[in-house]
């Protein structure tokens, strides 16, 4: 029976409508997966070197022991946010002559098919074989592997259990990360050390390998807990997240924009009331930390704005890029309604510009904390901001008129690539290259501030030309609307 279920699952994966629709998307995704795989393997095989680099005054095995619990704490937070609940797939089987225990077994097995369960093997196993085995021998290596595997399983089912009980909330993820960062800081300043704790745990296991049984027992315990919960609550409406009372809301600050504001408010609700768009939003906030990677002291000292331009464009324009890449498609479920109702297309396009401008402004204000690194970065951000709202919006909306792919916004959020086409991937090229090319000649002539000025000026001129761009996009939209509507009805 289990194999039948799994074969159905495989079929639903390969035969789903959006799958295979665009080979280009598949290939790009394949590359991404491969990239992450190689990264994980690289981390796994280079673990000894990495640990030496980060913790130079410590024995590598001690460091290794120290990071295991950290890794799984991080893993757990990520799982709670991103791992999908395998629930809806069982609906067609519930009324058939199939034993409940079989269905539960299927749900439990299916839950193991998650990328999260793959990473630990790539990251930790090489080290186990390369370092632990020569030092401690085969028995302990096996204990390590079993422990790591059990921790992964433990996390897997605990995360699902928490999600099933609907005691999760996106904000908890933030709290989780804050706690995580807090403990890391405490570790750094040697106040409370989780690393030492983690090391002590595995030291104890090294001394008494049978202690290692704790992990499989814990994993089995949580597995049982999960299975029991499922057995008692095998009703789809109880397994999916709980309904809370919905209330009507009114965004007063948008009312001053009249009809355009009403349309923007409509879209704001769309973003806030769907899981997929909400998680895009949260992703946008995470990208605020992108600057810490790109804004190197050296680059700031040399005024190398060209190098940092990409990060600045990306951070201040993230809301435009992320939300804009599926523009119009977010509304595919009611696109017919928008066309048939008394909505002026020009207002409709203006609302998009308004929403983008608000989003970019908010995120640029948030990103101003980089001013503490160097006030120069604020100038860079202003240039990037003007470019984003002036010209980035135009690029995104123009490309949106070429996007006919339906997006089912009610489908679960993370790692859902429905509605992704080649256009989305190509979007980044003109978007990111234009300002860099504008800056480049001045960068070469060593006139960095002139470069920033030119980028800002370009953005400002485009912003002043917004009336023209609105008409331009509206005309294009009117021409394309049948095609877009047809694609969205699909």
């Amino acid at each position, binding site marked *: 029976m289990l194999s039948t279920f799994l074969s159905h699952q495989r079929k639903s994966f390969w035969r789903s409508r959006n799958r295979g629709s665009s080979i280009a998307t598949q290939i790009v995704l394949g590359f991404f997966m491969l990239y992450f795989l190689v990264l994980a393997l690289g981390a796994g095989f280079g673990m000894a070197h990495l640990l030496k680099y980060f913790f130079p005054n410590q024995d590598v095995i001690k460091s290794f022991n120290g990071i295991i619990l950290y890794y799984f704490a991080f893993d757990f937070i990520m799982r709670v946010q991103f791992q999908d609940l395998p629930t809806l797939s069982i609906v067609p089987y519930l009324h058939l002559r199939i034993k409940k225990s079989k269905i539960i077994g299927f749900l439990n097995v299916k839950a193991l098919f998650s990328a999260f369960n793959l990473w630990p093997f790539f990251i930790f196993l090489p080290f186990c074989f390369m370092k632990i085995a020569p030092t401690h021998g085969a028995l302990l290596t096996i204990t390590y592997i079993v422990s790591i595997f059990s921790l992964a399983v433990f996390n897997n089912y605990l995360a699902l259990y928490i999600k099933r009980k609907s005691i999760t909330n996106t904000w908890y993820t933030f709290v989780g990360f804050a706690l995580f960062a807090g403990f890391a800081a405490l570790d750094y300043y040697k106040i409370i050390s989780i690393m030492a704790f983690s090391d002590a745990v595995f030291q104890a296991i090294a001394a008494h390998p049978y202690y290692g049984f704790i992990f499989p027992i814990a994993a089995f315990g949580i597995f049982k807990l999960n299975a029991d919960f499922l057995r008692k609550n095998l009703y789809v409406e109880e397994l999916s997240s709980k309904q809370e009372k919905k209330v009507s809301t009114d965004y007063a600050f948008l009312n001053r924009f009249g009809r355009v504001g009403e349309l923007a408010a*409509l879209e704001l609700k769309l973003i806030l009331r769907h899981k997929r768009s909400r998680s895009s939003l949260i992703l946008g906030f995470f990208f605020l930390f992108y600057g810490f990677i790109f804004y190197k002291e050296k680059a700031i000292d040399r005024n190398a704005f060209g190098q940092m331009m990409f990060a600045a464009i990306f951070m201040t324009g993230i809301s435009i890029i992320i939300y804009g890449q599926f523009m119009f498609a977010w509304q595919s479920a009611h696109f017919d309604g928008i066309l048939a109702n008394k909505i002026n297309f020009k207002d409709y396009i203006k609302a998009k510009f308004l929403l983008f401008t608000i989003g970019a402004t908010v995120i640029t204000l948030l990103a101003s904390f980089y001013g503490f690194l160097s006030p120069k970065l604020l100038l860079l951000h202003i240039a990037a901001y003007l470019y984003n709202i002036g010209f980035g919006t135009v690029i995104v909306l123009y490309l949106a008129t070429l996007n006919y792919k339906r997006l089912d916004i009610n489908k679960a959020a993370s790692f859902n690539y429905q509605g992704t086409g080649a256009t989305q991937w190509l979007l980044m090229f003109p978007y990111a290259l234009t300002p860099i090319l504008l800056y480049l000649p001045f960068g070469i002539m060593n006139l960095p501030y002139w470069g920033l000025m030119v980028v800002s000026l370009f953005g400002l001129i485009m912003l002043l030309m917004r009336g023209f761009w609105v008409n331009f996009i509206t005309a294009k939209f009117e021409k394309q609307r049948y095609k877009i509507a047809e694609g969205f009805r699909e």
Partner: protein
Amino acid sequence: MILEVKNLKKVYGDKTVVNIEHVQIEQGETVGLVGNNGAGKTTFFRMLLDLIRPSEGEILSKGENVMQSDNWKNYTASFLDEGFLIDYLTPEEYFIFIGGLHDLSVADVSAYLTQYGEFFNGEILNSGKYIRDFSKGNQVKVGIAAALMQKPEILILDEPFANLDPTTQIRLKNLLKAQSGSMTTFISSHDLNHVTDVCNRIILVEKGIVIKDFKTDENTLKELESYFSA
């Protein structure tokens, strides 16, 4: 004459889905579009609402081609399917949004909605749910009420009786009959009883072609039944 269809054709591949030579609709008529699945009813309605580009021909609303001008939106209300609902809004938000498009204030909208207490059967307003969480029948009710709220001169409904409970079907019929005369109504239905009851003109289509176009009288139902059982 409020609506005129001229040489309308829609072709998908080598299949002609709609092929209507000439149809005129007079102001105040209640027209029923009847035909089996695949007759092209929904495609026709979509062209009427400028959602699909016709392969040939044109549709004139008050003499203006619907593709070239937006004026028809001022006096045309429609509900074809759930794709017309903005399903992540609460019903109140949706009504206020649609009302706002026609310059109705929030107070106007709530005044209008009070008459619909019976029609909604107490399940729609203040329910604390988004439209997407409603049953299909209740979603249809929201769509129809929102369409009627616009006080349209032309009303287009695609199979409005499907998914409704018997009580609501009868209420809807009464609502539609009460409006006849002032409003031009265009509905499609598989329910011959209802459609002959409500409409004063029936257009029978098959594979995109108009087979019959006639005024209803006491024999209409029998005629239609014998046509479809043949």
